[in-house]
């Protein structure tokens, strides 16, 4: 088919200018002082923010687990529907993704506010008003809402490849619902699970819009912290770069973890 490798050169140039070079700049900033001298102070300077890192990992982890638990059954039933219905349902899953990200998150703000719609409805029943906005729960909700489709799609893609006869074979050999799930469905959809986790966890752990809009001041995440170093009051490119670098390392670790999990399950237990 395509034999001419030079066709890939434009992207190589693109990659060099917009990916490799900025990365090197980040590394450079992370290990230098404002005067350009080598230092590790930027990295050690992150220590006071350990709580923010921990919170980011915790909230993103929670959002990922919720997405997985919600998306798994949906993806399964989606993959068992007739082809024409599958297309309609997939459209509905992706529909929110066609709307502006900020708009969607703003919508949640108005819903969750103290005088928001949800509290008003609860008021009719004599409940509340509840503090919903500016909580960790609201941040998780925002993550789940925004990234759920990214969990459903890879799971669905993995599961449509699982033929009905495999599920029937498991039942035929004596597996009830639970063991069909744990011994056939989950191992066979493991690549989809790994992809889904990555695609939800990575943007969640580095988000700053969701936490700022729904989390108020008390739920600062790494993303917000980094933003402050570049655009906010603290303005320190060097510390900001060190944080970005650390975040990348954390994300890479998480990804390699999920990937090996996926591989092992696919290759079989033996």
């Amino acid at each position, binding site marked *: 088919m395509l034999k001419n490798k030079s066709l890939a050169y434009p992207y190589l140039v693109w990659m060099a200018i917009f990916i490799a070079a900025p990365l090197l700049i980040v590394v450079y900033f992370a290990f230098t002082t404002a005067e350009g001298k080598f230092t590790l102070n930027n990295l050690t300077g992150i220590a006071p923010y350990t709580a923010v890192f921990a919170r980011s990992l915790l909230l993103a982890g929670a959002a990922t687990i919720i997405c997985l638990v919600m998306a798994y059954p949906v993806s399964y039933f989606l993959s068992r529907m007739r082809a024409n219905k599958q297309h309609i349902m997939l459209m509905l899953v992706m529909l929110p993704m066609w709307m502006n990200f900020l708009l969607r998150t703003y919508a949640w703000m108005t819903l969750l506010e103290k005088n928001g719609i949800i509290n008003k409805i609860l008021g009719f029943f004599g409940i509340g008003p509840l503090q919903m906005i500016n909580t960790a729960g609201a941040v998780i909700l925002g993550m789940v809402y925004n990234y759920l489709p990214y969990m459903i799609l890879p799971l669905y893609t993995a599961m449509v490849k699982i033929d009905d*006869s*495999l599920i*029937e074979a498991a*039942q035929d*050999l004596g*597996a009830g619902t639970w063991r069909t799930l744990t011994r056939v469905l989950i191992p066979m959809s493991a690549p989809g699970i790994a992809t889904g986790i990555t695609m939800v966890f990575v943007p969640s752990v580095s988000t700053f819009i969701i936490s700022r809009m729904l989390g108020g001041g008390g739920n600062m995440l790494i993303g917000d912290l980094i933003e402050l170093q570049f655009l906010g009051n603290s303005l320190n490119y060097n510390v900001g770069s060190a944080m970005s670098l650390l975040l990348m390392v954390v994300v890479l670790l998480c990804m390699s973890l999920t990937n090996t999990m996926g591989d092992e*399950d696919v290759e*079989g237990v*033996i």
Partner: protein
Amino acid sequence: MENPVIVSLQDIVVDFDGEPILTGLSLDIHDKEFVTLLGPSGCGKTTTLRVIGGFVEPKSGKVLFNGKDIKSLPPYKRPVNTVFQKYALFPHLNVYENVAFGLRLKKMDEKEIHSRVMEMLETVGLKGFERRSIAKLSGGQQQRVAIARGLANHPKILLLDEPLGALDLKLRKEMQIELKRLQQAMDITFIYVTHDQEEALTMSDTVVVMNKGHIQQIGTPEDIYNEPKNAFVAEFIGESNIVDGVMRRDFMVEFAGASFSCVDKGFAVNEIVQVVVRPEDIQVVPAIQGTLTGVVKDVIFKGVHFEMRVEQAGYEWIIHSTQASQPGELIGMNIGPEEIHIMRRMEE
């Protein structure tokens, strides 16, 4: 010496989205028999198998296993195992683990699982393939794994859904003999679904011919071939010449413009019937000695025999003979009384 009935289907009704598949099917299957459900695609044979396996719950009717109704028992609680059409092997497990799948669910101890799996792999001729990945097996080998996996659970009945469909002719023939051998060695009931009449005749103790959700005939392969009950069975099982005739009296039938003695009786005088003559049962003789005479239209060499089409007074006869006549030649045809099968006319 008929074995007791192990599975009895009674008045089974199944429809998919309002379209009737089985309309009151009843069938007794005897223990330790090799039973084949034979019919064209869409005749309901696979659905019948799936009713027994528990994958299709009939709208009404009874599924009795050793006299007990198992209609609402889920597949994983039934003492039957299935070999699926596309094998349905677990791609995330190797050969050994595929065969061990059902045994592990039974929480058998590891030693026993090991000996059972090895025994099964040896039975199907796959010793030494334990660690092989499923993807690295040929179609025939995958087939054997699927059979070993089904048999490992020691089911009372093994259900096989067109298991040889994807194999080439030579392998298919080998596997037919192999399956028959396995069934006898395991001494259990095999229920086999196929649309290939030759396969059915080769392996079965009992053949159940189905069409449009109804059983057309149940019998031994010899019965089905030699004494088809109606034109559908006659046409489906091997090649046949089927012509209309009139039963003049007992043991005397008239067709194709001549009278023949036959071995059938019990029809009304002058009842209109259908006459079946197998192509190999027509004797070719010199024109002057033939009860019927016709002109050879063409001759095709088929390996063991020649297939000839002969035109006779508006009828076209297919003849299988080891001796070839020349196209255009006038020949005589004789049919012995034993070779004439009389059927009541099928109501369409």
